[in-house]
């Protein structure tokens, strides 16, 4: 049993004083993100077919499908749907990206999503097409 004494940690204290700081000056000095980082969702409107799979698998109810028109299949009129994303409830699990058969969805490396207006976090990008 080693001798008990106050200040056993003092040598380490001096050693760490000479090291460079462990923290980074974040907003000025950006951190390099790993390749698999899951940030803000993004959609490629060209590729989306409106199949609704992403809306079905989403655990947080981020995705709602909205009718943007109709299309004719045979003699039936079918609605054409496109997703709207409520990113303020997104939990960044990536389940929708995994399940998208058309590779329309991806997770970007953007993580600075704070905004004074909640509406900024509603992504209606797919509706324009």
């Amino acid at each position, binding site marked *: 049993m080693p001798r*008990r004494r*106050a200040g*056993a*940690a003092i040598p380490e204290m001096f050693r760490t004083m000479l090291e460079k700081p462990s923290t980074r000056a974040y907003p000025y000095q950006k951190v390099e993100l790993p390749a*698999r*980082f899951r940030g803000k969702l993004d959609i490629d409107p060209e590729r989306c077919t409106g199949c609704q799979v992403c809306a079905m698998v989403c*655990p947080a109810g981020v995705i709602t499908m909205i009718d943007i028109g109709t299309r004719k299949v045979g003699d039936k009129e079918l609605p054409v749907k496109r997703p709207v994303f409520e990113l303020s409830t997104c939990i960044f699990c*990536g389940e929708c990206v995994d399940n998208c058969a058309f590779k329309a969805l991806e997770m970007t490396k953007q993580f600075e999503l704070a905004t004074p207006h909640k509406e900024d976090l509603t992504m209606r990008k797919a509706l324009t097409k």
Partner: protein
Amino acid sequence: MTEDKPPRKEESAGLMKYSAENLVPFGPIHPALKEPEYFKLVLEGEKIVEVIPRIGYVHRGLEKAAESRPWVQNMYMFERTCGICSFVHSLTYGQAVEGLTIYEIPRRAKFIRTIIAELERIHSHLLWVGLMGHWAGFETLFMWVWRDREVVLDLVEAISGNRIHKSMNAFCGVRRDMPEGMEDRIVERMKFLVDRANYYKGIVDTEETMLERTEDIGRVSAETAEKLCAVGPMARYVGLRRDIRLNDPYAAYDEVPFDIVTSKEGDVHALLKLRLDEMIVAANMVSYAVKHLPEGPIRIKIPPVIPAGEHSSHSEAPRGEIFYYVKSSGGRTPDRVKSRQPTMANLPTALEILKGQTIADVPVVLTAIDPCFGCMDRMSFLDIESNRQWTWSGEELRRYGINYYFPERMKMR
């Protein structure tokens, strides 16, 4: 109890009743508690004689919510039971559901699960050692330990894409493979962490600040701990060999060599050393598993409908045994999911330890069980309907508060 002394407690219908003067409320908001929880301390002088817990301040209603959600979505919900040991929740829930299906989990997926679970154990134990230093008045240790914790979090982020909520698990497999060329980096970082853990072990053994606050505090006998169904480090620090990784191996724990750490001393100081030792064991396990990672598929896709039946699964989280019970009636949503978190199992032991301690030791003892009240409270019903959401503006919230505490003031307006 003699005639001249007024009776302090009276027995009526088997229930203890205490007079108001020796009751000290502890919580729900208290500087020594990181999460809202309430303990009624019954005192005799400065000594605690009885503790009555009141939990439930952070209930989110997960068990009720699980009954109305598809199987896969529940996995992400249960992962969010806790912000520290998130992976092991989805792992245990996944194992409980996988038991109902006929599919075999690929061997590579089992190894990846083991690696992530052990990385999580290291990060959770480091977090706890830091907090322990904080409550013992050794803030420097807190800073150092949390700096080293970043090493693990960076690794987890590189493997899974997120620091805390890894979202790695799927039914019958994992969602992401290990990245290429990570092996050397992981092994090297693990070596660094083993060195650090050994250094901290030396510090907690010699530094007087730490010893004064932790030695001989929080003693409990092995028989009591066993009777009160203690789990995890709280069972091992009194000498019980209770570790589900060893007793009932899951994932790849029967293929990765390791030995559990137990202690005989049974005080908070022993707990500190035990958790640091466990960290070293976990780091060695990660190195071994990364080197011996088998080839093969990582996932089997299973249909969204789970066959009817009931099954339970348990696993060893950093804090102790996590238990999930799943009942399916063959539909797209579960019939019942029961989850029991280690803090719930360790709370009776903590209450038993508190008896006989002084008030000053309450923070140390309560931190010693590594409490996670957010985990424990998971079962109310206030925010679970996914399609109906309501929010309060700051003004509404303020009004509600005033109305709750001073209704007469609202009437005056």
